[in-house]
């Protein structure tokens, strides 16, 4: 790298020496980051702010999943289980102990410990046999957990989930600057949004640090050739298990953030298999093996989800007379189109949006 100014050095250090690496990619990421940072001021609607907060949470969730799928090359279907653990940890603590920061911390910490222990057990148990076992076993454990969560209704609220009060600082009615605010009305929701945003940013930078550390290099080598990594003296089981634990811990925190943001947690928001599918789509479409892909994948998918369904609703009313077509574009069938997109992107864009952009640069300057 050519010498940079002190400012560039600092930025490189924040990004752990792994800048996006392509101009249009950088611009895209900056647009997303700036949009999210300024969301409460430029997009003041309730729905858009909710979309922005969801993007923040899912960026973290998807990035942590990418640590497994893209960097270590293991497929887990239990990632939403950890996400759900975080959500339920905070939700249960706030429901039982009332709104307070102590409850939030207690809930998040308990969920974190439970997640790491569970991830450790699953990892030690199934990662030593065969990577393919891991996919199946995580699927089984995750669905057992989902059923358990919906059946222990005295604790988790069952299918209805839990609705609770978040700490007063984050409530809708809280007005630190009175009714006028500064530029826009600052409510507890704005503060909650920034809690989510900065926590998400910190977690993302932490993951960037992890994948660019010597530990992350070993993970990459395991992905490329596990046998060779083992021959070089790295205990691949240990590395895979630790990666699994880190990913689980970060997913748990993402779940805790979502629970803190929504003031509600239920199977459909954090635990259902549909979320797992969404996460898979985001990782693959954004780009496996690059954390920046998580940012773009989550943004594109969540925006698409929120607005694709609107589009489909319009199409569906337009096609109301045609029997099969109307069913095909019915808003509930959006997963069909995303599924097709998913298969096509695995075949034709295996490195996703980010991979495409980076590859283009490599072709231009050999």
């Amino acid at each position, binding site marked *: 790298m050519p010498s940079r100014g002190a400012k560039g050095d600092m930025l490189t250090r924040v990004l752990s020496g792994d800048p996006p690496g392509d101009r249009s990619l950088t611009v895209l990421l900056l647009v997303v980051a700036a949009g999210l940072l300024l969301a409460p001021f430029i997009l003041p609607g309730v729905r858009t702010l909710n979309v922005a907060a969801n993007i923040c949470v899912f960026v973290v969730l998807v990035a942590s999943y990418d640590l497994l*799928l893209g960097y270590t*090359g293991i*497929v887990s279907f239990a990632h939403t289980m950890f996400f759900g653990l975080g959500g339920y940890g905070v939700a249960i603590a706030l429901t039982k102990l009332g709104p307070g920061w102590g409850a939030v911390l207690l809930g998040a910490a308990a969920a974190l410990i439970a997640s790491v222990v569970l991830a450790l057990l699953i990892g030690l*148990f199934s990662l*030593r*046999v*065969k*990577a*393919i*076992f891991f*996919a*199946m*076993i995580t*699927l*089984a*454990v995750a*669905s*057992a957990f989902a*059923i*358990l969560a919906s*059946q*222990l209704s005295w604790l988790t609220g069952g299918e209805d989930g839990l609705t609770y009060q978040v700490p007063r600082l984050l409530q809708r009615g809280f007005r630190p600057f009175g009714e006028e605010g500064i530029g826009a009305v600052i409510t507890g929701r704005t503060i909650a949004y920034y809690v989510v945003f900065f926590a998400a940013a910190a977690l993302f930078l932490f993951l960037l640090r992890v994948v660019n550390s010597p530990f992350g290099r070993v993970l990459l080598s395991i992905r490329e*050739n596990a*046998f*060779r990594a083992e021959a070089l003296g790295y205990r691949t089981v240990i590395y895979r298990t630790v990666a699994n634990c880190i990913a689980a811990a970060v997913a748990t925190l993402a779940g805790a953030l979502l629970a803190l943001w929504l003031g509600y947690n239920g199977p459909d928001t954090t635990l259902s*298999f549909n979320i797992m*599918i969404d996460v*898979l789509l985001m990782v*693959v479409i954004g780009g496996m093996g690059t954390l920046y892909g998580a940012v773009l994948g989550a943004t594109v998918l969540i925006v698409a989800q929120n607005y694709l369904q609107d589009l489909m609703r319009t199409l569906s009313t337009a096609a109301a007379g045609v029997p*099969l077509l109307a*069913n*095909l574009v*019915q808003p*509930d*069938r959006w*997963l*069909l189109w*995303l*599924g*097709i997109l*998913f*298969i096509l992107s*695995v*075949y034709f864009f*295996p490195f996703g949006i980010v991979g495409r952009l980076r590859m283009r640069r490599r072709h231009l300057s050999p």
Partner: protein
Amino acid sequence: MTTQTAHAPASENGNGRAALPRRDPWPLLLAPVLALAALPLIADPQTWATLTIAGLAMGMMIFLMASGLTLVFGLMDVLNFGHGAFISVGAFMATVVLGKLAVWSGAPEIVPNIAALLAAIAVAALVAGLLGWLFERVIIAPVYGQHLKQILVTMGGLIVAEQLLRVFFGPDQIPLARPAAFKGAFIIGAVAIEKYRIVAVVLGLIVFAAMQAVLRGSRLGLLIRAGVENREMVESLGYRIRRIFVLVFAAGSALAGLGGAMWGLYQETVTAGMGMEMMVSIFIVIIIGGLGSVGGCFLAALLVGLTANYAGFLAPKLALGCNILLMALILLWRPQGLYAVARREG
């Protein structure tokens, strides 16, 4: 791939015993032991008998659905997460056929009833088999040898198939009535045995026997078994394993369709998501049985069916958890499953 050949630990795979299930009787004892162990817990022998029959019937149906998947994996290292789609397709085909044959199915005599049932499962198997062939060509063929992409792509295939079922058949669950002769139960002493469960057990045994006959008695079966153990060697002897594989894939899908039709009749309702729900049990079964082993798959399916029914009675909330516990225990005993297939790759 080839660099990993030497890596497989000889102590686990190379002792010959693993490849020959008949010389290794211990796993055969598991199902009877489990059944006997459950007896004192359940206390009431009549309930126990009912649960045991139900467990065996469920196990047979799970075996039908899982057997194709385990062979497909054994033969080509393809783990098909989309397998569940064929289960749902089979069940939906059964609703279509039994809907068309409502006269036969509702008739008071047993002969048209059996004809309707056979027609339903035959159509289910045929359609699922054809779809399986198509699925292999379109979805799986481009990603041979790439595990990660296979998992992702077949999962995508499952999502698309499930959504398409909803497009064609509507999003709601569809009731599926059994033919008249298979409704109700036999009462033997104080034990009530649902007639359909007997049908499921008999049909499962017939298919298992037929599979064993093909696998052990025919040249094709010999090639399939050889291919599971060492694909490269079979190829180097001049056989096109690729063609055998397509055949096995289609047959496995057909069995899944058959199992799905049976399962739909067992549940008496059909949903697009039922295949996905079954996949969890199926994965547990093929892991317990040892990936690629049909005999192991059969035993594991019985174990899982029995455990699910006993646990469903004793601790309903923990039913699926008990199967995972069962899997954990068996993997602690035999990390490669009940009957490990000697494999090239670790």
